[in-house]
């Protein structure tokens, strides 16, 4: 009886240990997936911010070009008059 009980306790402890190891490994797999997602997210953030800066740059360049063109057309109109 005592042998049986002791064996059961040993098995339980063994099971718990294995379960802990399995959960930890699963946790790792999850963490790896999260990490990959996070990295992809960072790459996207970087790409978006880079794009955003370029859009601002292009927008402001267009503003300047528009003003310059407006001034030029005004000068031409004045010359014609």
């Amino acid at each position: 009886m005592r042998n049986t009980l002791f064996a059961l306790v040993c098995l339980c402890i063994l099971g718990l240990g294995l379960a802990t190891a399995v959960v930890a490994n699963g946790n790792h797999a999850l963490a790896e997936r999260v990490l990959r997602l996070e990295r992809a997210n960072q790459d996207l953030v970087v790409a978006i911010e880079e794009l955003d800066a370029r859009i601002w740059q292009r927008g402001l360049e267009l503003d300047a070009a528009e003003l310059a063109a407006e001034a030029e057309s005004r000068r031409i109109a004045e010359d014609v008059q």
Partner: protein
Amino acid sequence: MSPRLPDLPTRSRAGLRPVGAFFVLGCVLAAVATRLVHLAAPNPAPARALLAGDPEPKSLPRYGLTDRHGAPLAISHASFALEASPQNVWLSHTPEILRQRLGDALDLEPEEFEELFRRLLGLGETDSLAVTRWPLNVHEALALSDWLAAGGPAAKRTDAAHLAQLGPLHGMWLDPLPADAPERKLVEGEPGPYFRIAWAPEVLLSRAEREACLPQLVGAKNAAAAWVRALGTDLHPLLAPAMAREAEHADVCLLRGGDPRRAHRNHECVFAGLQPRRFAPLLDPVPSAAVPALRGIFEEERIGPFALWLRGSSTRTYPAGELSALGRWGWSGAEGESEPVPLPGLERLANGELAHLEELSGVRLREGAAPDLARRMLLARRPGLQRGYYLEHTEPEAPATVETTLDLELSRFVGQRLERVLEESEAASAMAVVLDLETREVLALEWRDAYRTTLWSPLQRLYTPGSTWKLVTMGIALEHGHVHPGEVFDVGEGHYRLRNEEGRVVRVIGEAEGFKTGRLTAAECVAHSSNAGMVQIGTRIPPEVWKRKTKELGYGLPAATELVGDFYNPPGQVGEPEGRGGRAWALGRSLASVSFGDSISLNLLQHAAGLAALLGGGEWRPLVFTRAVQAGGARHLLPRQPGRRVVSERTSATLVKMAQLGAEEGTGKNLERPVAAHLGTKTGTTEKLPNDVCSHVWGKAYEDALESGKSWDDQAEYRRYRGKWGAGRASCYVSSIAAFASSPDGSKRYLTLVVVDDPHVKGRPFGSRHAGPAASDILCEALGYTVGGGAPLATLADGLWPLSVPTLNPALLPWLESAELSYARFADAPAPHQNTGGG
């Protein structure tokens, strides 16, 4: 009674045999515990050792700058920097494979990629690496030479038939040790001559050399690592005496490695000496489009995260172009490795203000997500830890945005207008500042140089103000009751003789721009820029008052220090410096010169702040460049520094009227202006003295020095070039103008100060000719009379065509007040009284 020992059972009553079970259980628990500890270890030992040598990643700040309307002037966005440890990379990789793959992924210009790859190879100026740690004596050199001649690692690892075909090992050789080499200390006393090892990484580590030497490595897994191991293992005994000498002379051992505790990894120890570089910044920023390809290379080529990695960095861009006033970020040493330093300009000012706010609030304002990004990536790429965890976590936050007082459109207009001035006047440089007289906010600050320079001109370029200073003279004289606006002065016929109390002529004062003769009121002296009149007024002011009041106006003191910090910020000087013999402030010297704007050196911002005080109510206040900080979704107004009263409001109002008279009938009368602007001007034309230098001559010489890289000594060059005005020129000039005007509804009053240095175009160098039209155009643009230099287009309503309103031609606007009636004239001022003194 307890049983006696011999009676105790030697076995368990239950018949248990626990040893085996406990052993199994113990093993399981130990395994689980080991795994758990391994998982939880934040920094495995090899990672710690490698981390110790890594320089701290340096990134530019993340805060932004906007103009007064919210348009971005400076943005920092997250980006990646590609960095490497050449030592770790070449321990286990083949150069030509990485050259090919990185070249495809990065898509750079050939020269740019070549430079990047040289850094990855750890090369300096030459195509080979010299091993400085282990100089060899003649015996060691002979042994090494024999090993090289025998085919290097092939000697021990291949058969005689192969060795017979094989020549010497390529890519490594011995050079004589130069007499001045610092490592010569290590071999002193050894039998000479001395040698040092040199090697070419791309040859020695190439696949061709490896496979020719060791055929067993053809197609082998990790062949590159095996090749380096073979090289290092063979070299270690050959270099052992040199390593022992290095350990003895620890004081001259400048590089790390060769740790005897790691002797079991001999090849790594040897390679640390062959390839000492453990950090090489390769590319910053990496184009985001290249990032996935790089990650693919890391994975496919099994490049360890301590060999080649992507670091979270930030890139600073100026979407509106690089405005002069903004400045930029530089580095205290090598780019990416040293401290980022804000160079003079608004970048430096904003960084300082945010640092101060950070101190007060304890909130991060200059950084954003980038450091967090870097930390997470670092955790993810530790060797020995296949999968990463976030051991700590901080929510990313948006960095602050500093709202400046600059107006982007106006700044651009001012910049373009100055370019025109530079072209039309053939000037060496042109500077302009526009500020609000009420708030002292700077709306635009621009300058253009015909020659390459490193100066932050508004503060670092000193000039003599000339007649624009007459407003200062008049302001001080009025304030202290030395003159009345209507007081009449005899200004002579173009040459005024300044006499002392005994009646002796101490100096003859000449006139400049379109001078008036005969008798002028004090107001007309300012309006017509009469040197004779101003000398009579200025010499009434005692030198002590001159010194005190000019200090109160900020002259002779470093201006806007927050914009330049520790960089060069000359305070300038009012009057001749003391100690040159005689009394510097004698009647015929500084007292006379300063009265009409001579013997003074100042910078643009000093003069702008001083004139703004005199024309903007009489109170001196520091110029304002920033308005608010936006952080955490809230907008915080920045505090303004208190001012100090220098002259009364009445004196200020009188000066305004005098300048308006100058614009109406004085030196500024020919300038085009909208009627409603109530323009006021004071022009200035300063002829350079024989002791001065022509900015064209100076600028050209400095540009040549910058381009050729030769040393430059300011004082020696000054002595060399002073008084040399260039071919066929009698002198050089600084033309300037201070002008102010009001908006159509009278709600805003702006001041501009335009300075044109050394206009060389033929004709008179007067301020009204070179700087005047630009000042008028700039004020019209700033106050909304023009848009982009032309008449503004008024949009009536959606869907209707805009209508052009020609505001600049009063004849077309009959409903406006006529020009003659729109000015407050000094002729209507209280009756003047005759001047009887002053010569």
